[in-house]
């Protein structure tokens, strides 16, 4: 039996993640109503690429692309596409992967209103308590990094440093007076009719950014709509293919979630009805509607028959399994690992998982560890040696003579040096200068100065 691990259901869709949605749609279209061949397990792991599929021979395939390739190589049904269709499928897949994540990131994660009122609550229902502090903020950070170049951060109000001037009573100001002024202003603004001018509307940050966002959305929707045209599926096939499932995964998350700033769904409904109909067609045909509560209720089931019975009772159309439950040990390790990651310089860098074993030499691979280890050994060894008396800490000369003032006091070399007249002169000049400076600077010497003046 194939096991598909996804992030849990939300917004009436099988998953809160686009690629997970696509993978569910793909498996559903591949196996049809036959529920015995595969099952979906909601998971909360953030360190592996989701979705992943565990096959019968215990191989794990990470990401939609790998799952799609696995299914098309193991079954003969998918190989009916012509070479042109295959090429188009590759191109559209790449197009989706280039543009759609950016839009989804902005809509669900970067926009603070949507994040706070839709995405975050959806995650809260799904995840175990500790993952709620780790996974959503991480995805939000990744989304911000992905959309950094667009400069639409103004819709991300959390990021703006709001100066709270009224909270801190400045020094030297009368706090009561300031409070009174602020109150008077508030009252006055209540008296005036509050009207949004075009200018003030445009100046609100979410509106200014929305112009840019609409342009980005058009870049994605318009070519996709043209490619779909009046066809039922993207490649003009009778059955949905892999690329249709991927398109569904992204578009459904743009269309269905009820978010406070619904500009993305609005653009789609108003201008690209063809795409909306496509998503609804896929949704109906594959029966992908999911109630999150029903899936989470499965956690109470103990036996397999229990699960099957519950599925039937709730008339679930997908082979859901109870969510993975973290053990106490797992929670503890994840939390501590995450805490360590928060320390600067200890954050794990992005990694590329190599296909073959790494061909780098050993010393290069472990260079930081080797350097750290050497430094620590040297320090510890030095400390031990000093402590036990193996080596002696330099403490200066055995006999210390105080009051050395002239070069001659410093042995033969000093005597030789004192012979150099230039140095002596220099020293004399320096000391004279210092004396002068002292005279000018020190107020105690006032009277000396005045006497001089009097003499002149």
């Amino acid at each position, binding site marked *: 039996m194939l096991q598909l691990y996804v992030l849990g259901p939300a917004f009436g869709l099988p998953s809160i*993640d686009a690629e997970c949605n696509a993978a569910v749609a793909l498996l559903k279209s591949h196996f049809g109503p036959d529920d015995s061949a595969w099952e979906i397990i909601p998971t909360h792991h*953030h*360190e*592996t*690429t*989701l979705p992943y599929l565990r096959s019968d021979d215990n191989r794990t395939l*990470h*990401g939609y*692309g*790998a799952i799609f*390739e696995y299914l098309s190589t193991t079954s003969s049904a998918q190989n009916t596409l012509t*070479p*042109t269709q*295959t*090429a*188009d499928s*590759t*191109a*559209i897949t*790449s*197009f989706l*992967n*280039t*543009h759609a*994540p950016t839009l989804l990131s902005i809509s669900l994660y970067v926009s603070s209103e949507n994040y706070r009122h839709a995405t975050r609550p959806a995650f809260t229902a799904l995840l175990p308590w500790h993952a709620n502090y780790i996974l959503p903020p*991480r*995805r939000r950070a*990744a989304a911000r*990094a*992905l959309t950094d170049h667009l400069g639409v951060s103004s819709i991300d109000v959390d990021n703006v440093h709001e100066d709270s001037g009224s909270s801190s009573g400045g020094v030297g100001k009368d706090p009561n007076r300031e409070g009174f002024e602020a109150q008077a202003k508030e009252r006055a603004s209540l008296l005036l009719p509050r009207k949004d001018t075009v200018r003030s509307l445009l100046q609100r940050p979410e509106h200014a950014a929305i112009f840019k966002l609409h342009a980005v959305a058009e*870049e994605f929707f318009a*070519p996709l709509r*043209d*490619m779909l*045209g009046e066809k039922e599926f993207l490649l003009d096939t009778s059955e949905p293919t892999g690329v249709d499932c991927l398109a569904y995964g992204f578009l459904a998350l743009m269309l269905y979630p009820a978010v406070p700033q619904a500009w993305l769904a609005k653009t789609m409904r108003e201008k690209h009805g063809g795409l909306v109909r496509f998503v609804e067609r896929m949704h109906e045909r594959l029966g992908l509607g999911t109630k999150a509560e029903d899936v989470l209720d499965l956690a109470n089931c103990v036996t397999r028959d229990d699960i099957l019975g519950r599925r039937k009772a709730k008339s679930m159309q997908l082979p859901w399994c109870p969510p993975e439950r973290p053990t106490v040990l797992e929670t503890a390790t994840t939390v501590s690992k995450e805490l360590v990651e928060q320390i600067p310089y200890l954050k*794990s*860098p*992005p*990694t*590329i*998982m*190599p*296909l073959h074993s*790494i*061909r*780098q030499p050993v010393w290069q691979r472990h260079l930081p560890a080797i350097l750290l280890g050497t430094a620590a050994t040297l320090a510890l060894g030095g400390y031990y040696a000093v402590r036990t008396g193996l080596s002696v800490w330099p403490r200066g000369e055995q006999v210390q003579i105080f009051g050395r003032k002239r070069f001659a006091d410093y042995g033969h070399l000093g005597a030789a040096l004192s012979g150099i007249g230039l140095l002596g002169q220099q020293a004399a000049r320096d000391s004279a200068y210092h004396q002068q400076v002292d005279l000018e600077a020190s*107020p*105690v010497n*006032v*009277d000396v*100065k*005045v006497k001089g*003046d*009097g003499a002149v």
Partner: protein
Amino acid sequence: MPKDDIPPRTSMTQTAGGPPAATWSQQQQSSIFRIPPPLKRVFDKFPLVQYGENELPLRASRQKDQHVLHVFTTLEDAKKGRPSFNPGCLKWQAYLNFSGLEYSTIPSSNHGSPSGILPFMQPAAQAKESSTIPDAVPSNKLRKWATTQTSKATEESEDLRYESYASLVNNALRKAWLYQLYLHPSNASLVHKLYVAPCSSTLPVQLAIYHQLRDAAESELCKSSYSNTVSEEDIIRDARSAFSALSELLGEGEWFFSQSQPSMLDASIFAYTHLILDEELPWGSNGLATQIAQHQNLVNHRNRVLDQYF
């Protein structure tokens, strides 16, 4: 005035009227702003000497009558107008060649560019003796600029699938290129030769530059992944399917989308295929070349562009 028990400051205020005390208080007031004598002696000599403006360095470009494209290249290659070794630059070089513009190339680095990214174009001065130098054209405005300069503008295909095939180049091929060049351990010497050695000859600086390049490539590859990991297998698979899709699109045609003239898409695909197939680059490991070699029409396309436009 004799020394007494009163501290100097209070005595000063008390005897403010007397002439000696007035002298003192003047000094006290001015001393806050007075420059220390050694510094004053230096400042007295200002302005020291005003030298004339330095001449531009000998290597600076003086070709004011010709458009100059700043790209990643070597001095010898620039003289012969050979292709740049950076795909982003080569794309524009090919595009400008397609549109028949006369220009010369010059080696530069990202620090030299007004936008921070190469290539950029320094257009020729309008009049021979005019002192005003036209503003540099960054790469994102290069296309618009090219259409104003020449009547023989290249036409882009109106095909519905154009955007999706273009994304194939910018997504799959670019990622595969980044991975193969910057992150594959056996190509470290090539990166060193192309990007690190021209910047500095000091070992610590070179190491730092190399690690910066690697980190930049890594974070670029992992940007779209939430889990911060990308598997090499995915990158290679995407590149393989991208090449076969492009080969299928080209078919037996001369240019992509059966255009009569090469277009932007041809330029951007040529930028990658040429560099991957270029035998003069000392690759340590070049898996992409074996992938392209399976599609003879892509190899022919590259040779066609190279023969006709370079």
